[in-house]
């Protein structure tokens, strides 16, 4: 099972590329796609989900060009778009039955799968209510369920935790961990903690280009000994911001506790601490932003 992306580009306007010359080779596992808003994550996901045609480049699923033969991928694809709607007059159960029919599941398998999915996404009690009455979070869970209907080999989830409460968010992360194994899960988000918990590999993307692709451990290694923490008076924050990337601040009685990314100790009081993925992400995006 392999998804190969090579020289993938999408041009929206003459002077604007949503994605540019993107290469990636993916195997089974949870791949976190990280990037700021407008980085090109959704563009990439829509192209992988056979929704949008790229301007240039190829996408191969187990060696088959999905631009020429999209149905090869569609039959094993589960896709949760960033923005999607539902049919308001249907109940969650009916909507999932409809989607199961579209995806080609036989009635018995569909019924069993839907029953299981309703439990998994915690919608059993609301399954027979019209979707028009669902909150944003509940609708998102219906979206997650439909993406998993056909037990997909490639699961693409674009900002899946938007609108979910903290408990549902953790539940979803656990679900992703459970699902990982013999399938490729591509998880796009700009919330680092979402991928931190589940991703086996991480792709960082900015301005439509891949800026890093590595396992989380390797990414963390990039900033080993380069993250510092100490307390400063609040008045010094602005000056510090101009010199360094500040990845976190916590207000304390004696001032502000700052977390700074720097090659050398930024202050005599600064102590080195273990880097987090958020530190790495901020560093990579900031570096890339300066190059652009």
């Amino acid at each position, binding site marked *: 099972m392999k998804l190969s992306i090579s020289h993938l580009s999408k041009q929206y306007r003459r002077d604007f590329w949503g994605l540019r010359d993107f290469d990636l080779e993916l195997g089974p596992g949870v791949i976190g796609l990280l990037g700021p808003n407008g980085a090109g994550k959704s563009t990439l996901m829509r192209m992988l989900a056979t*929704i949008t045609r790229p301007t240039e480049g190829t996408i191969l699923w187990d060696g088959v060009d999905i631009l020429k033969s999209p149905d090869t991928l569609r039959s094993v694809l589960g896709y949760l778009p960033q923005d999607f709607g539902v049919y308001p007059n249907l109940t969650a159960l009916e909507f999932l039955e409809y989607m199961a029919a579209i995806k080609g599941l036989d009635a018995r398998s569909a019924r069993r799968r839907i029953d*299981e999915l309703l439990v998994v996404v915690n919608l059993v009690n609301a399954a027979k209510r*019209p979707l028009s009455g669902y909150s944003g979070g509940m609708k998102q869970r219906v979206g997650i369920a439909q993406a998993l209907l056909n037990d997909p080999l490639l699961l693409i989830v674009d900002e899946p935790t938007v609108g979910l409460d903290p408990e549902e968010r953790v539940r979803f992360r656990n679900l992703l961990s459970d699902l990982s194994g013999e399938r490729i899960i591509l998880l796009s988000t700009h919330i680092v903690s979402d991928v931190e918990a589940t991703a086996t590999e991480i792709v960082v993307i900015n301005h439509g280009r891949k800026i890093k692709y590595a396992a989380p451990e390797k990414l963390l290694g990039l900033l080993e000994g380069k993250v510092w923490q100490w307390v400063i008076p609040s008045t010094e924050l602005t000056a510090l911001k101009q010199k360094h990337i500040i990845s976190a601040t916590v207000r304390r009685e004696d001032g502000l506790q700052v977390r700074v990314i720097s090659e050398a100790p930024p202050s005599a009081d600064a102590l080195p601490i273990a880097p987090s993925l958020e530190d790495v992400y901020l560093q990579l995006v900031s570096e890339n932003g300066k190059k652009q």
Partner: protein
Amino acid sequence: MKTLRILYHMARADFLERTRSYGFLLMLALVMWIGYLSASGQFRMRVPPDHIGIINSAWVGATMTVTVSFLLGWVGFYIVKGSVSRDYTTGVGQIMATTPLSRPLYMLGKWLSNFAILGITIFILMLEGLVMNLVFGSEGLNLWALVAPLLVISLPCMGLIAAFAVLFESVSWLRGGLGNIIYFFAFLFALISTSALTTVGTPGFKINPYSDFTGWQIIGDSVSHAAHAAYPDVTGGFAFSITNLSATKYFHWSGVQWNADILLSRLFFLLVAIGIVLLASLFFDRFNPSRLRLIRKRKGSFTDNADPFPGSGPLSTVPEAPIAQASIQVERRLTPLNNAQARFRFDALFIAELKLLLKGQRWWWYGIAIGLVFAQAFNSLEVSRILLIISWVWPILILSGLGCRESRFDTRQIVFSAPRPLLHQLPAAWLSALVVLALLGSGALLRFILAGATVSILGWITGALFIPSLALAFGTLTGSSKAFEVLYVLWMYLLTQNVPMFDFAGLTPQSPLYIYAPLALLLLALAVFARRRQLRSA
């Protein structure tokens, strides 16, 4: 000053949003075509039986005015309607609702934007009339005679139409397809009852400009008198038609003699338009979900917790489903599916599409449908044919969702990423609509078979094939249900008037039945083409 600024920016933003759509280009094309037909004399004003004016500036201007009142009065409503609905669906309305913007001001802004869109059409027609006058006209150009009827008569009429569009959008039950259908017949009724076509220009007739919103009386009376002056045997009357004349007699007409009464009446209609807009603001819920919820609760068509703004999570009052266990681990493992379990079955998808089509209809909808089916079976052939038309109009709001449901409810990305959406979902949707029409017309089919009415049976089959194809093609092409709703009602109306060209059901002896089966195929091909385009750019 501040109010004017708000009004200006509201109308401007709305206007720009609309003029930057393909729909606007289509509208421009329609207007130019209308202008060409009227200026070239294909749409013609006449005084019965066959007297028409020499083509000059006044004649071109008046013909365009009459055409605008008729066609844009009718269709223009559907063109401009939708700006308030857009604020609901995009969620912009909820943002606006948090500003100090008052209801009357919001409604006035929308009216101004509607009015500007329709005003542009008038302006284009003026330019076109100018060119056409130079091409087809037999006299020199008289600019005032050309533009005056469009300015004085058409503009206030369009103001009124723009106001009705706002009113229909402010009343929740008139906002959708039902409102479209009601307007269709209401306009027809208003046009017929106020135009006084047969009596205009006759001795003793006095125009009532304050009821004549289309201006047909004003123009008709003046034209009829000019014809009488040239041909004393003319007894009056006025007609607007696309019929060919056998022995045309020409007369000279130099235009309407404008007087204070006429000018005041047109101003009156503008004031009425503003009054309608202010009235609309009373019905407008200002994007307040609780008002809408209350209405729906009374109607009983939704659950108590129904969210009137699908997609607006934060506004919903539905409690999240309780978390079953304290643990937030996944409680149940998913059973893997094998390939055999994921084999496509068309019948399953067809049933799912059928459910989707019929879901949400109330019991009385089914009651009336069953009543119509029985009535078709137990009436004379003639009555049965009429009942068949009514039965096939009955599911109009269901049919109009074909092909555009995915855009309307934003399920495109989910539906289109499933395997073979062109080969699976689209035919299943078409077939489900065909089955609904077949069931609704089953009484008539039985009646035709028992009577051995072969042509009617053929007409029935053609109709059952043609209608879903038309709906699917329009839905996929326009991404909206509005175009089909308007066209279908117009089409079925012409069918009841026995216009042979539109008779796909074999009701008239001259029915070109043989055209409609291939046309159905062509429309299906169009739907496939449009859906293929959507698939590539969803």
